[in-house]
């Protein structure tokens, strides 16, 4: 299986994780297990949506990023920044000031990811004219693309074979600089990401062999850095070293927000945000309960990218700011000559290679073997209590039963089964405690007044 190659940006900080069940219960693909008192993420099941990070009470889940110093290994240091980055700042801080701080921090060029949305829009509309199987599903959100690959393999063919704006913009800017005389090695393209899924997509792109992004910087990291400089500035005038910073159109500003794409496609278009909503919708779509939809914009985060796990501000305020700014720019077009001259290049390089399903659902490649396993699971479920407490280290009884059949857990991991075994003297109390410690860590049940919520918390 090639699943092992999949890079995941979400990591568990084992020193901080104290072993609760929040992330395990919130993971929409059931990819988290508790082992030895720490959360572990199953690589081939994780879609990098970031729900675990949002639910962690102690910030033990983090997004791995490239070291900022790495930007200085390049002569031309390009930051590709999505519009939601600017939406986090209060309205009295202008884009120009933010840009000048980014120049100060070391970026020689700043380019907004959504500059290529008009061309992407055009290509998708042309593709819609070829009457593909309905509905088309946007490839914009990398967590959704992965979700479909692992959980809805039959829908993989519905994903629009057009790259998302960040990839198109990265490709464009690299070629623009080469055109202007830079060599490929001198150019470092860094994407400022609002989410974990995008990092994973950059490090291990799905359905795309060529990758123009050289590194990824977490949006919260850059936000703090920029904000710190802004706060210490006494002189509020900006000095932009970069020649022209083209203005995004109203469409570009709103593209990554909910309805950003759906508003501009042909036919009946629907926008659905938040991953559980998306899963529910895709279930119905698969059953053909829903038909006659032409285009689906699906985003893993509530409020789409404004709700990205690496954003610092409140997502509703971010959406409001971007919409306000978009309103002021309505009906205005900003022709950036450079972008226009590369229109054909972008259109040619925007095609997304076909994606392959990699179902996480199957119990076995061989159907007879899978049937036997399923029979065993159903048998095991006769004994498990159906409480779904998570005390076994799996999110629910069904998952434990499946883990047992996969030989990754034992029936005695269930604390209620342990009780029954103690009653029938098949298990000694000491052994039972050891079993619990295997899942929840050594001495986990000892008195500890420093734990979260206890009387000496933080002391």
């Amino acid at each position, binding site marked *: 299986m090639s699943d092992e190659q999949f890079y995941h940006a979400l990591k568990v900080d084992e020193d901080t994780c104290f072993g609760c069940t929040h992330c395990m219960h919130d993971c929409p693909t059931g990819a988290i297990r508790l082992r030895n008192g720490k959360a572990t993420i199953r690589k081939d099941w994780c879609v990098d949506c970031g729900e675990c990070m949002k639910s962690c009470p102690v910030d033990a889940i983090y997004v791995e990023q490239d070291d900022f110093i790495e930007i200085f290994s390049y002569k031309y240091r390009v930051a590709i920044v999505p519009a939601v980055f600017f939406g986090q700042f209060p309205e009295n801080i202008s884009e120009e000031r933010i840009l000048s701080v980014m120049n100060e921090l070391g970026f020689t060029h700043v380019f907004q990811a959504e500059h290529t949305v008009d061309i992407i829009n055009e290509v998708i509309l042309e593709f819609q004219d070829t009457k593909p199987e309905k509905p088309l599903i946007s490839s914009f959100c990398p967590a959704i693309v992965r979700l479909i690959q692992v959980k809805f*393999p*039959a829908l993989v063919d519905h994903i629009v074979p057009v790259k998302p704006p960040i990839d198109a913009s990265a490709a464009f800017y690299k070629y623009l600089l080469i055109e202007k005389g830079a060599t490929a090695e001198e150019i470092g393209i860094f994407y400022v990401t609002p989410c974990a899924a995008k990092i994973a997509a950059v490090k291990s792109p799905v359905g795309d062999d060529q990758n123009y992004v050289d590194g990824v910087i977490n949006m919260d990291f850059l936000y703090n850095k920029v904000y710190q400089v802004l706060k210490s500035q006494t002189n509020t005038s900006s000095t932009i070293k970069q020649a022209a910073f083209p203005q995004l159109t109203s469409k570009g500003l709103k593209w990554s927000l909910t309805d950003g794409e759906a508003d501009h496609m042909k036919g009946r278009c629907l926008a659905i945000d938040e991953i559980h909503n998306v899963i529910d919708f895709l*279930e*119905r779509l*698969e*059953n*053909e*309960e829903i038909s006659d939809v032409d285009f689906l914009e699906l985003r893993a985060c509530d409020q789409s990218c404004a709700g990205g796990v690496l954003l610092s501000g409140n997502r509703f305020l971010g959406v409001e700011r971007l919409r306000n700014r978009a309103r002021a720019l309505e009906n205005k077009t900003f022709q950036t000559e450079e972008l226009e001259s590369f229109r054909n290049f972008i259109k040619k390089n925007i095609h997304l290679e076909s994606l392959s*399903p990699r*179902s996480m*659902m*199957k*119990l*076995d*490649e*061989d*159907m*007879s073997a*899978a*049937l036997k396993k*399923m*029979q065993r699971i*159903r048998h095991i479920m006769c004994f498990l209590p159906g409480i779904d407490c998570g005390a076994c280290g799996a999110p629910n009884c069904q998952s434990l039963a499946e883990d047992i059949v996969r030989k990754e857990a034992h029936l005695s991991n269930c604390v209620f089964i342990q009780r029954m075994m103690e009653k029938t003297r098949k298990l000694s109390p000491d052994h039972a405690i050891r079993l619990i410690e295997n899942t929840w860590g050594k001495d986990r049940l000892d008195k500890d007044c420093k734990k979260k919520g206890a009387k000496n918390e933080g002391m």
Partner: protein
Amino acid sequence: MEFKYDVEGGNFAKAGHAASAVKKVLKQLNVNPKVIKRVVVALYEGEVNVVAHAFKGRIIADIDPSRIYIKIEDQGPGIPDIDLAMQVGYSTASSKVREMGFGAGMGLPNMKKNADKLQISSNVGKGTVVELTTYFNS
């Protein structure tokens, strides 16, 4: 291996429950996604028929490595003329049901299209039995 699902007549909010459950099972068994789709579409139609027309029903799905056999049994008005019901576009659905997006007269024809074998028997005033078989390697 046998699976049983109860279907409540008149409750459209729950229509599709059995289809989703069977879909999950077939995915776990690594059945070809295209075959899964056919089975699920046919089953969903059958499930909606029970919800729309009958008082209550029961779905039994039996799976072996070669095929899935589904029996949809209901207690309801029955179908007086099965040949007529099989015609595309023929519908007895009330306007209320049509407003909800059901009852376009495609149910049985769509089931026939998506199953390898379809057998219907009905007893007017008592109920209907629909049997579907789909082979995994067809």
